[in-house]
């Protein structure tokens, strides 16, 4: 019997674990180590953040699902990896620390035959002064929608702001409220979540009748609106080619949302941020309510050799994400190729360790790298969430199962390169059965392949976009479909990643 341990139970880890268990059956053991007791469909957190969904709509308890699937579930966080075992034992193992009430803080060694790192990111709030609380958590100056609890808090603050705006309108004081949404650092990813949140706020403000009392502003590290961390994209809209730049600019103008781009948020205080622009100039922006996405980093896992020496740099890139079969020495932007991107997500040193989803270290950015004259990098980092995370998780599960069943020598490693993978993204711009809108986009490939598709790097036959009510319906249906799938209800395997 082989034991597969999956560290992390998010989109990628959950996909890996559930498919691996389905394919391996009772003959082999699948263990999930995740600090969370609940699974969260993160894309819908933005609706929790505007009060259109409750926390219970976007989460469910993991224990019964894993019990049903026959997966050994440990509510704990992984602390360290020991791929060569320890003195007196060659068995690879990890150390986990319980996060479960009653056993919190207790550590345990878990041996493994195969290990998948799908921990997702650490929300690195403290990378920006004042964005975090100095303990790695969200500070008091802004809100977040990165977790369901954050989103619940964001909604409370947002409703208080709406109330202030309503009162000012009634009293005729003319006091306007100012909302700032975007990225809280020059190296953030996940602009999509902030994009969805700002337009949902705008939509809700309209519904609440206070839109005319609120100034809404976007701040982002993108060099142009519509970059989305993918260097922008071309979309076919109504038979015409439209750049995501123009698409986004039109949407912001239409909804009267002002923007700051090419910005690195360097400091956050109560009601005020400081930011540096691409040209190195420093500026300030005030706010009454701000949701700023933090940058991501690895979760802080360490790696140790048999003799106890630190081998973290063998397992992880400097940003804390796990090294996989990517080309990390591609050099300057002009040398970047689609083939730099990992295909199998296998660690180059330890062939029984894989990484999936956000946990793998990308070889480089997708967007064109930029920095200010002061040397501050200001560019979006590559998105690896949602559909790609699920697809990668499934491919990794396939590879590991083949290795277990056929042996390492005979196994076929399954590929899921983001440079050969399309992705569909449905970005909500307001929730409502009849007045909702969402931008539905598909892009192929996620990472541009300039050799295969000279010019834009993408296949425009498979890249399209549309904004409207139908997009919202799709987004809402996807919410229910993916939670259904994650709960492993009948036919869950038929629903694509």
């Amino acid at each position, binding site marked *: 019997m082989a034991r597969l341990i999956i560290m992390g139970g998010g989109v990628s880890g959950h996909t890996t674990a559930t498919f691996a268990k389905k394919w391996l059956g009772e003959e082999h053991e699948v263990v999930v180590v995740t600090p969370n007791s609940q699974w969260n469909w993160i894309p819908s957190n933005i609706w929790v953040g505007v009060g259109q969904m409750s926390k219970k709509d976007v989460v469910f308890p993991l224990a019964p699902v894993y019990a049903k699937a026959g997966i050994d579930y440990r509510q704990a966080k992984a602390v360290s990896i020991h791929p060569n075992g320890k003195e007196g034992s060659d068995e690879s193992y990890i150390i986990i620390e319980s996060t479960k009430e009653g056993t919190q803080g207790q550590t345990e060694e878990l041996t493994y035959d195969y290990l998948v790192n799908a921990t997702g990111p650490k929300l690195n709030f403290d990378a920006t002064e004042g964005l975090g609380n100095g303990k790695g958590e969200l500070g008091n100056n802004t809100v977040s929608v990165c977790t369901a609890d954050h989103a619940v808090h964001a909604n409370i603050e947002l409703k208080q702001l709406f109330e202030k705006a309503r009162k000012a309108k009634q009293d005729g004081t003319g006091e306007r409220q100012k909302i700032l949404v975007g990225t809280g650092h020059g190296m953030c990813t996940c602009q999509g979540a902030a994009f969805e949140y700002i337009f949902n706020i705008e939509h809700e403000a309209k519904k609440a009748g206070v839109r005319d009392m609120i100034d809404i502003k976007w701040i982002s590290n993108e060099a142009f609106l519509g970059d989305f961390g993918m260097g922008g994209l071309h979309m076919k809209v109504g038979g015409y080619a439209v*750049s995501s730049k123009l698409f986004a600019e039109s949407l912001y103008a239409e909804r009267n949302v002002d923007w700051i781009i090419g910005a690195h948020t360097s400091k956050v205080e109560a009601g005020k941020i400081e930011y540096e622009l691409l040209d190195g100039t420093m500026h300030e922006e005030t706010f009454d309510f701000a949701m700023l996405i933090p940058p991501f980093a690895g979760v802080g896992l360490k790696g140790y050799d048999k003799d106890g020496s630190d081998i973290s740099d063998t397992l992880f890139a400097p940003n804390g994400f796990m090294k996989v079969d990517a080309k990390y020495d591609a050099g300057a932007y002009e040398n970047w190729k689609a083939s730099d991107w990992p295909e199998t997500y296998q660690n180059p040193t330890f062939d029984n360790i894989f990484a999936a989803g956000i946990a793998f270290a990308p070889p480089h950015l997708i967007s064109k790298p930029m920095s200010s004259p002061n040397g501050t990098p200001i560019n979006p980092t590559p998105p690896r969430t949602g559909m790609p995370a699920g697809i990668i998780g499934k491919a990794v599960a396939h590879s590991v199962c083949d290795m277990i069943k056929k042996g390492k020598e005979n196994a076929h490693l399954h590929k899921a390169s983001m440079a050969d993978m399309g992705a569909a993204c449905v970005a909500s711009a307001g929730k409502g059965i009849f007045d909702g809108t969402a931008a539905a986009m598909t892009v192929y490939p996620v990472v541009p392949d300039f050799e295969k598709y000279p010019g834009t790097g993408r296949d425009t036959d498979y890249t399209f976009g549309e904004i409207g009510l139908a997009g919202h319906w799709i987004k809402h249906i996807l919410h229910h479909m993916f939670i259904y799938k994650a709960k492993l209800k009948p036919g869950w395997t038929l629903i694509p990643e």
Partner: protein
Amino acid sequence: MIKTITQYPTQTGFDFGGTVRHFDDTLDTLIKDIKDTIEANDIEGLSAFQIGSPLNVIVIKYEGQYLEFINPSIFVKEGEIHPTESTAYYPNLTAITSRAKYIKVVYEDSNGVQQFFTAEDDLAVLIQRKNDYLMGSTFISRLSTEEKKIFEKKLQGVSSDAMSCTLSPFSDKILTAIKYSLLLGAIALPLILKQSFIPSLQMFETYLMWMIIGLISIYFVRAMYEGKRCGVCQLGNVAAMTLIKSLHLGVLYAINTWLLF
């Protein structure tokens, strides 16, 4: 080499906005071609797209000097002005646009070194206009609804053939409705997993497929009528589109027959 400037009604293709990655002889040749074309036509500037290149390159002739912007991005826009603009894409036509008065651009020079440029008023407007081409657009996307209507009337005078070869927005809307109806039909299918939903799902899919047949028929009749003005090319497009949508419907019917009926 002097190149031909793309003019209306040639539609923008998908090849635009390509990031320049190699600062080599090919780029130098492209910049030289743009300059030659600017000189030959005595104009203020051109984007690479206007002479058929997909790359993000703009060349502006300002006070006798050439300004070369490679991979430009306007990251600061301040103030608002409403200039009357003209462009080589729409010869002899003007329109009142909405532009930022002051802009800051981050770009690379022809050696690939990151630079910044600040512009105001006319120069800012010119750069913004050329930048629109890098997005596969023209200044038409910067017009108010009213101004757009006026400009579209002016365009009809330029090329009645070109205008007549465009189907009405209503026909496009029918196509969109067909697309989303097909999508809805496919998305609803997982409901089959719940036994109690099956009778309702059968009824829903039946009505939906009849509705799609109706929409395809309406599209075909209307688009054929509109397309008659254009000739064989547009009629061929309509017929092909009708066939494609019918095939999609056929696939939905086959899946429904297999799973539901």
